[in-house]
């Protein structure tokens, strides 16, 4: 990493200030909160100090039909240099939660509670002006559709150098030099000619590269990539994923990768968080979640994808549909679709919401399920069906 020393110092100061504030808050709120804080600290599967901490995040949209609870009590953390993949189906709240991190929700129409801390600084409750200083500087976002997220009437170069000039007081020439550097870095051939071209003159893959160049122009410490390759072809997708991987190695930034494609997750992620109906249902390192999953929904996802490497006889889809966010089922949100519901004694699945608990009593791999013998069910029933 090439960040100059003063900045590092500033960050560590900010972090310690944040810790102090948190400690003070703990003292005020009493011990029950303190244990929750501790648990959130434990939540990072790698054990490293996290850069982004999202804690107990809830996002609600009041609508004419009622309150849509898009995200319910989501907690996760990402240290620098690691990639967290958030996986889930449409409507599971994965995009909504990361837009909350960027502060992109309309304040008048959204109720956001919980805490989002970036290097120790709380983001929730910041004024629009203060948020502007964070957005695009410390945090960058790469969107799914590069066609609609670039301005069609400005040249690519103009858009990249503007992103730089918003956060740095430099002349246009310096900004242009920086933009050319970035275009070169993300592998766009002939940057000088490309600088003056408009988005429609770029192909889909090139546009996504330009978006990444724009996101990275201020050396962000956190990159949120929302389905960055969904609109691209496989061969181009492979190029973009390689690019993100290499850039992360070079700059050591934290990446939050939102995707529905478990194949992409397997190739990119260090940590994986599975979301269902606005809640985290399983969280752990990629190896934990993909090789030793401990939640019926994750099993269902793995069983329902046809893979390139194995021609399974029959896919085993998850029955039914995801629940409406206006009216979540009582108990575990997955219970109406869960084939293992009968194995839990009594009606706990339909009455009690399971907590997100460590799968083996302790450790960083957590899942939200009442089942007792998750490990043996996976080993004896699910795994044989997968291979």
């Amino acid at each position, binding site marked *: 990493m090439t960040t100059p020393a003063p900045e590092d110092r500033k960050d560590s100061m900010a972090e310690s200030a944040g810790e102090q504030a948190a400690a003070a808050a703990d003292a005020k709120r009493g011990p029950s909160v303190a244990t929750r804080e501790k648990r959130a600290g434990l939540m990072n599967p790698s054990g490293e100090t996290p850069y982004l901490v999202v804690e107990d995040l809830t996002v609600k949209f009041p609508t004419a039909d009622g309150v849509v609870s898009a995200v319910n009590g989501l907690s996760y953390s990402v240290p620098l240099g690691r990639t967290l993949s958030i996986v889930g*189906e*449409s409507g599971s709240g994965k995009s909504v939660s990361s837009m909350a991190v960027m502060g992109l929700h309309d304040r008048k129409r959204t109720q956001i509670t919980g805490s989002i801390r970036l290097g120790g600084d709380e983001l929730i409750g910041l004024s629009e002006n203060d948020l502007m200083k964070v957005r695009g500087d410390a945090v960058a976002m790469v969107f799914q559709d590069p066609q609609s997220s670039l301005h069609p009437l400005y040249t690519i170069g103009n858009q990249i150098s503007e992103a730089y000039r918003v956060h740095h007081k430099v002349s246009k020439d310096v900004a242009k030099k920086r933009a050319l550097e970035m275009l070169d870095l993300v592998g766009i051939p002939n940057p000088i000619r490309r600088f003056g071209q408009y988005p429609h003159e770029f*192909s*889909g*893959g*090139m546009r996504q590269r330009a978006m990444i160049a724009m996101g990275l122009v201020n050396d962000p410490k956190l990159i949120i990539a929302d389905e960055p390759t969904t609109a691209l*072809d*496989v*061969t*181009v*997708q*492979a*190029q973009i*994923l*390689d690019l993100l991987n290499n850039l992360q190695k070079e700059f050591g930034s934290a990446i939050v990768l939102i995707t*529905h*494609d*478990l*194949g*992409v997750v*397997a*190739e990119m992620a260090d940590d994986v968080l599975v979301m269902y109906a606005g809640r985290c249902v399983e969280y752990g390192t*990629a*190896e934990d979640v*993909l*090789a030793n999953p401990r939640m019926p929904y994750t099993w*269902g*996802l*793995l*069983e*329902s*994808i*046809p*893979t*390139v*490497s*194995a*021609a*399974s006889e*029959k*896919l*085993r*889809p*998850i*029955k039914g*549909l*995801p629940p409406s966010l206006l009216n979540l089922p009582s108990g575990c949100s997955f219970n109406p679709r869960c084939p293992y519901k009968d194995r839990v004694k009594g009606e706990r699945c339909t009455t009690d919401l399971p907590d997100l608990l460590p799968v083996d009593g302790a450790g960083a791999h957590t899942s939200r399920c009442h089942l007792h013998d998750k490990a043996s069910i996976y080993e004896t029933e699910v795994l044989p069906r*997968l*291979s």
Partner: protein
Amino acid sequence: MSDTVRPIDQPAAQGETLLQVRDLKMHFPIKEAHGLGRTKKTVQAVDGVSFDLKAGQSLGLVGESGCGKSTTGRMITRLLTPTSGEINFKGTNIAQLKEKDLRPFRRQLQIVFQDPYSSLNPRQTVSNIISTPLRVHNLVKKGQELTRVQELLERVGLNPEHHNRYPNEFSGGQRQRIGIARALAVEPEVIIADEPVSALDVSIQAQVMNLLEDLRRDLGIAFVFIAHDLGVVRHFCDEVAVMYLGKIVEQGPREQIYGAPQHPYTQALLSAAPDLGTIRGVPAKERIRLVGDVPSPIDPPSGCRFRTRCWKAEDICATQEPKLEGKPQSAPGHAAACHFAEPKVDLVAEIA
């Protein structure tokens, strides 16, 4: 071309060739301002595609966007009139038939579209959507329509009581089922499925895939399955054709295409597909990364169209177009259009 012309409503025997496509071309004319005058150019969306489809078989057309797979599907169902080439359905060439003569064939060749939102009329009830083809082809007596519609809804796994609802009351997966019911209504022998599951979530995708699988098994419908997702195609198709820039570059039985692909493009495509095997089992041994983008179909490269992105390209590739043919070492029915075709294994991660 098969020798006999048979009545088309007589069902084909299992294994009989239903559809023969020969040298099919679709060139879309475009006008481009060039100085003061205008030059006429063509987008060569599909440029000489040939394949056979047997009764009950399922053929996968795979490729990246712009390779002409959807255009091929639309020509077979004659939503587009091909520039040249033959589409022989049970011995009759339907490539240039007039709309009036085409109608009996429309009943046999149905299509399921990609986007379940835009392919259903939002102002018609489900029952109306499904019964229109029944009425057009005079398949049921008046008064019997509703029974047949409900039967079809049940067949595709929807509640028959919902026949009076509008498409907006259904989820994406359910709408795709309505689209499938509409195609099934006329009891076709061939269904062209144009990316039928790519707009759906994984868990729903598997439900629709299983439905298509059941229909194929129970009703013996032949499928031309168009998709960009190699996993889905591997799951559903016996035979796979890989397309690149308007041409088939490799074709063969599923095991051959996935196990021992010969064309560099197929190899790159398989190698690029992200796969769970990397975590659960042995990662793929070799990785191929293509550079650059697909060239424009307005002015495709001379000779082999893949040569601009190919790591094996030599002089001969620019001058001589490789034929789609079986190589001495290839399995029966497996053909690749490459001067330097050689099988590569280990491109796909194995699940231990």
